[in-house]
């Protein structure tokens, strides 16, 4: 029963999100079972809500990979510099007129930016020898801050007004989503989630520390590199299309872990579902709370995810021991 709870909530949230909006859809249920019958439902809301689901799933699994690969409870794309790097890669290419927001090109640039900044974080954190969790997080925050500043500078040079907004790159928005750019984020999400599924048993062993993981047959450096690449693909695809939506990468894996335990095979699926659920609900709220204006989605995701995370940590803190 517990197994199906988040998926059931996600399905319900998906339908509600299709239903609510500035315009009332006549005969909603009939339109829902006849694809293409209603323009607002199928041309505007369906791509947007589907994008919310995919982006949430991608960021949820990206966070899981970050925490698993670093064996650190607070690692996530926003903290390791991954999200800022993805934003920078995409916004730089957009400002030079090389690619469009949400295009495959922007996703590729975002992924490369994410990979480079995350690698930079790891390199700088290990500059004095061994890689400690503490230095990784401190260096990650610093790298994030630097690249967030670069994003601010580069976004000022973007000609398209809606993509020029610093709010878009800092807090995210699904307003620029079209049916076409769903394909790009769907591809990156499927690739990244499939890699995460494949390496999940190795991430279980990595939680015992590098030495024990190696004794159990894990090539630690290789698994960490693969996780890093998958994390960059997931974050790069999501961030270059909808901007930076913080907190999902932290909240979704933790909520999944509290409900379903620490096995990464289970967590890949449930982090994706819970990440998708948070973003779908947050997007619904962000476009209905202050109509006709739209709130940045990052504000809603934080408001939704943070209280749940605090409650879980306060009442059931035996899944991740942080010493």
């Amino acid at each position, binding site marked *: 029963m517990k197994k199906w709870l988040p998926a059931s909530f996600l399905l319900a949230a998906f339908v509600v999100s299709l239903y609510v909006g500035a315009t009332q859809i006549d005969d909603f249920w009939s339109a829902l079972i006849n694809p293409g019958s209603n323009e607002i439902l199928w041309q505007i809301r369906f791509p947007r809500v589907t994008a919310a689901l995919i982006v949430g799933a991608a960021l949820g699994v990206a966070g899981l990979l970050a925490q698993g690969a670093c064996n650190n409870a607070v690692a996530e794309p926003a903290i390791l510099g991954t999200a800022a790097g993805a934003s920078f890669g995409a916004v730089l290419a957009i400002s030079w007129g090389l690619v469009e927001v949400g295009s495959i090109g922007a996703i590729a640039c975002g992924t490369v930016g994410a990979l480079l900044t995350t690698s930079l974080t790891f390199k700088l954190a290990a500059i004095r020898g061994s890689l400690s969790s503490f230095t990784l997080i401190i260096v990650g925050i610093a790298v994030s801050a630097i690249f967030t500043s670069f994003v601010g500078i580069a976004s000022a040079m973007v000609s398209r007004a809606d993509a020029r907004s610093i709010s878009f790159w800092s807090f995210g928005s699904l307003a620029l989503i079209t049916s076409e750019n769903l394909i790009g984020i769907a591809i990156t999400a499927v690739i990244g989630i499939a890699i995460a599924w494949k390496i999940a048993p190795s991430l*279980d062993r990595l*939680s*015992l520390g590098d030495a024990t993981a*190696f004794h*159990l047959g894990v090539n630690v450096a290789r698994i960490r590199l693969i996780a890093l690449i998958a994390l960059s693909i997931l974050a790069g695809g999501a961030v270059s299309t909808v901007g930076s939506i913080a907190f999902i990468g932290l909240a979704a894996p933790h909520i999944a872990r509290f409900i379903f335990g*620490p096995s990464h095979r289970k967590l890949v699926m449930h982090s994706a579902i819970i990440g998708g659920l948070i973003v779908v609900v947050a997007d619904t709220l962000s476009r209905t709370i202050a109509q006709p204006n739209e709130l940045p989605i990052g504000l809603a995701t934080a408001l939704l995810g943070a209280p749940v995370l605090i409650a879980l940590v306060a009442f059931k803190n*035996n899944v*991740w021991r942080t010493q």
Partner: protein
Amino acid sequence: MITIDEITIVRDGREIIYDYSEQIPAGSITVIIGPNGCGKSTLLAAIAGDIAPDKGTITIDELHPILTSAGTLAGMRAMAIQNQSFTLGFTVREIVEMGGDSTNVLQALGLTAIADRLVTTLSGGESQRVAIAQAIAQKTPVLLLDEPLAAQDPSSRKKIIEHLQQLADDGTTVVVVAHSTETELAWADKVIKQFH
């Protein structure tokens, strides 16, 4: 058979092990003893393939651990480190099964009663026994254990020693680092004294 041939290991500019050779016979229990900092754990880590000797070679049945892939090595040797810590709340059974089948070893080491407990809630001695059980579950020809008896009560020590003797009788090469004196090691087939 483990062959250690004229190895030197230098760490932070200090020679931990110098020009050292040893033969560890197959199907027996060998215990390495010596004072703190003499290089007991370093020697065990070198046999496990964790660190490379600066000079000399180590072979396990003709294979060089340091030149062997992690996957192949995990089929040749298992190792339980000292002070294994657990950050994620897996159950005892799940942790042991990361090594292999858990049925016999849980019972042999007295872990059946706590098999479904989360490892994050265990005492130091229990955590160490879980790490030993995981290594034994790998069912490798060579078993390396760093201070397996340090945090154990007398009953658990007895269980561990009896099981190691059983494994050695069945052909496993067991190498143990211990903080004991030679007189306490009647259960060992061979004792290596490390002095720096």
